[in-house]
C-alpha cells in the first residue's frame, strides 16, 4: 500500500506526518523532498548504501558537426544553439530526451552522464529509508524521483510512505503517480487553505483517493477545515498545535516511538487511511 503525503507549501508538517506514520508499521519511508530531505534526521538510518543518479546529456564531436542546426530546431527545450561554427549545449536546460542524437544526420552527437544527485538507502528499526538528494544548482530532480519510485516498487515492505516535495509541480506529480492514496496536510490559516486548494486540484486531476490531516490545530476558526467542509473532503484527523509534540519534533525524535499519546493519535489516522484504501479497492477493484 503506497501512501503519499503532500502539501501546497513547505513547513505544514508533511515530514512529521510521514515519519510518524511510517514508524508505526513495517514500512518503507521514501523521502521525495529531494531539495531538502529531512526524514533521515528523525530516523538516523544505519547501513547506508549510496546510488548516484545521473542524466544523459549530449556532447558534440566538432569534427563531425557540419552546422546543419537540425538538432537546434528540434530541441523543444532550447537547450542547443549554434553560433560561429560551433554548437553550444546548455546541459542544465536539457531534458535528456535523446532526440538531438537521433536527428543528427552526421552522428556528431553522443551521450554522456551528468551527475545530478544521489539516493541513500538505509534502515531504522522497522523502517527502510530511501532518501533522494538533488545536488545544489540542478534544475530538475524528476529523474531522482523516478528512481525512488522504482526502488520503492522493488521493496518488499507492505506499507510505503512517500514524503512528497512541497507544491504541485512536475516533481510532485511524479512522486504521487503510483500512490494508492494521498494525504494532504494543511495548516489552520487562510494561506494554509489556499495551499491546500492547490494540492486538492492536483489529486483531483490525478483521480487519486485522498483525505486531509489538519495540522497545528487550535481552538476556533480553521480555514482549511472550512475548505474541507465546503468541498466535502474527508478529514483523517487533527494534530494539535501542541508544545510537547513540537518539542519532540524539534529534537529530531519520532513522536510515536516516544509517547503513547502520539502513538494512539497517529495510529488512529493510519487506521483510517488503511480503511479508506480498502474501501477504495472494494469499490474500484
Amino acid at each position, binding site marked *: 500500500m503506497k501512501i503519499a503525503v503532500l502539501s501546497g507549501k513547505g513547513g505544514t508538517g508533511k515530514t512529521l506526518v510521514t515519519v510518524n506514520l511510517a514508524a508505526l508499521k513495517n514500512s518503507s519511508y521514501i523521502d521525495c523532498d529531494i531539495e531538502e530531505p529531512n526524514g533521515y534526521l528523525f530516523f538516523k538510518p544505519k547501513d547506508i548504501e549510496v546510488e548516484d543518479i545521473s542524466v544523459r546529456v549530449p556532447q558534440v564531436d566538432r569534427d563531425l558537426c557540419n552546422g546543419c542546426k537540425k538538432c*537546434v530546431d528540434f530541441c523543444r*527545450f*532550447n*537547450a542547443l*544553439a*549554434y*553560433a*560561429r561554427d*560551433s554548437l*553550444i549545449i*546548455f546541459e542544465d*536546460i536539457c531534458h535528456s530526451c535523446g532526440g538531438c542524437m537521433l536527428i543528427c544526420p552526421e552522428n556528431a552527437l553522443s551521450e554522456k552522464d551528468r551527475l545530478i544527485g544521489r539516493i541513500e538507502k538505509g534502515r531504522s528499526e522497522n523502517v527502510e529509508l530511501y532518501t533522494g538528494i538533488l545536488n545544489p544548482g540542478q*534544475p*530538475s530532480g*524528476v529523474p531522482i524521483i523516478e528512481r525512488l519510485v522504482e526502488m520503492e516498487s522493488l521493496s518488499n515492505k507492505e506499507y510505503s510512505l512517500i514524503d512528497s516535495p512541497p507544491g504541485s*509541480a*512536475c*516533481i510532485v506529480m511524479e512522486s504521487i503517480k503510483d500512490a494508492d492514496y494521498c494525504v494532504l496536510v494543511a495548516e489552520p490559516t487562510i494561506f494554509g487553505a489556499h495551499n491546500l486548494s492547490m494540492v486538492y486540484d492536483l489529486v483531483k486531476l490525478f483521480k487519486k483517493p485522498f483525505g486531509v490531516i489538519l495540522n497545528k490545530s487550535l481552538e476556533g476558526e480553521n480555514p482549511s477545515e472550512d475548505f474541507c467542509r465546503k468541498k466535502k473532503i474527508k478529514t483523517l484527523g487533527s494534530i494539535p498545535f501542541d508544545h510537547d509534540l513540537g518539542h519532540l519534533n524539534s529534537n529530531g525524535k519520532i513522536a510515536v516511538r516516544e509517547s503513547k499519546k502520539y502513538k494512539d493519535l497517529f495510529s488512529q489516522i493510519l487506521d483510517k487511511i488503511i480503511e479508506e484504501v480498502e474501501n477504495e479497492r472494494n469499490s474500484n477493484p
Partner: protein
Amino acid sequence: MMIIAIPVDEANVEASVSDNFGRAPYYLYYISENESSDFLVNLAMEERGGAGIKAAQILVDHNVDILLTPRCGENAHAVLHAANVKLYKSVGGKAMDNIKKFLDGELELLEDIHEGFHGGN
C-alpha cells in the same frame, strides 16, 4: 555594414524598448549602411523555457552585430557572445532614439548579465 537589433513591444518605428530581451514580441532590425529598419518577429516569445537562447539564436541567424537591450540573461549571453554580438545597455524611451544614441557613442556596454528567470521544470 553593421546590423543593430533592439527588443520592442510593437512592430513600428515609434515603438518603445521592451523591458525584456528573450520574451519581447519583436526586434527592431536596423541596417546602418542604408539606414533601413525592419522588424523580426520573436518566435521565442511563447516558449516555455529557454526563450533567451532561442531569441539569441534568431538574432545570430540574422547576422546581428549589435544588440541594444535593457538586460540579458546568462544563457542568451552565452550564445550572443559566441557569435561575437556586442551588447549595449539601452536607456528608456523609443527604440529609434536608442539607435541614434548608440551611433553617437552615448550608450555603454552591457556588463551586468543576470542569471535568467528560469521557471519550473
